[in-house]
């Protein structure tokens, strides 16, 4: 029963709380991923250039 600590905290959330928190995190996370890994703007591209190559994102 090593999940005791988690199971006491997670079920206390309502479905709508989970949906709101999840949607917020998903949106913020995708903005960060698109900004570092996908954005076409040359400043974002050149600043994150080595990261893109190192993480296997499609680059120039």
């Amino acid at each position, binding site marked *: 029963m090593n999940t005791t600590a*988690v199971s006491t905290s997670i079920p206390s959330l309502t479905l709508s709380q989970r949906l709101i928190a999840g949607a917020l995190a998903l949106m913020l996370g995708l903005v960060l991923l698109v900004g570092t890994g996908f954005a076409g703007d040359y400043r974002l591209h050149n600043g994150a250039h080595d990261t893109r190559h190192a993480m*296997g994102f499609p680059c120039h």
Partner: protein
Amino acid sequence: MFRNLFVAAVLAALCAGLVTSAFQAWRVTPLIFAAESFEGGEAHSHGDDAAHSHEAGTPVHSHGDDEWMPQDGFERTAYTVLANLLMAAGYALVLGAVSVLFNLPITFNNGLLWGLGAFAAFSLAPALGLPPGMPGMPVADTLARQLWWAGAAVSTGAALVIAAKFRAGWALAVAAALIILPHLIAAPVAPDEPTGVPPRMTAEFVSAVLFNGALFFTVLGLAFGWVNDRLAARSVAIPEGAPA
């Protein structure tokens, strides 16, 4: 709730972002720098490149004439570390969102599974169709590659979530189909143009990028789980101490 999720994601991203930055500096960026010397036209003289002693502030190499890019040396490394941290935060928030939306907790005990799953979705699956490429290598249209990359990642990730959420025969069948699907849709093929990048270097780079991905996502999953466990233990302890 969002605060806990955010705190755990940021702390995990800090760990994974710093670990990948160290690994990249050791095994990945040296290959990128070496490959850049094969990149068309604007080759730099190697004597200048090798010596990192340009503290005087003279712009040693400017690639495009008017395009901003970080100066080689400290500035370029700093931007890479910053980009690594932001990218890590992005991945951590996406994992946290999946965890919360599908009620699949990330703990230290299953953190390795989360990390390997993310590695499969965001590194392995896209790399099967689009092998990690170095500067100076011929590539297909960027937007087409980005779309295929994202499609492969989402499809593989969805497969793993479905398999984890519904542990039944049908779920495994759907998951298998979703994992195979992107590879039946052919990834954009790079044009068959000559490149000066040596094949040995290309192979080394692909290995290094996949290792880097495995390292990054493993640390991310384990750190995320560890912080989650700590936060959960604390929120259980709070009612006994002071009513917050």
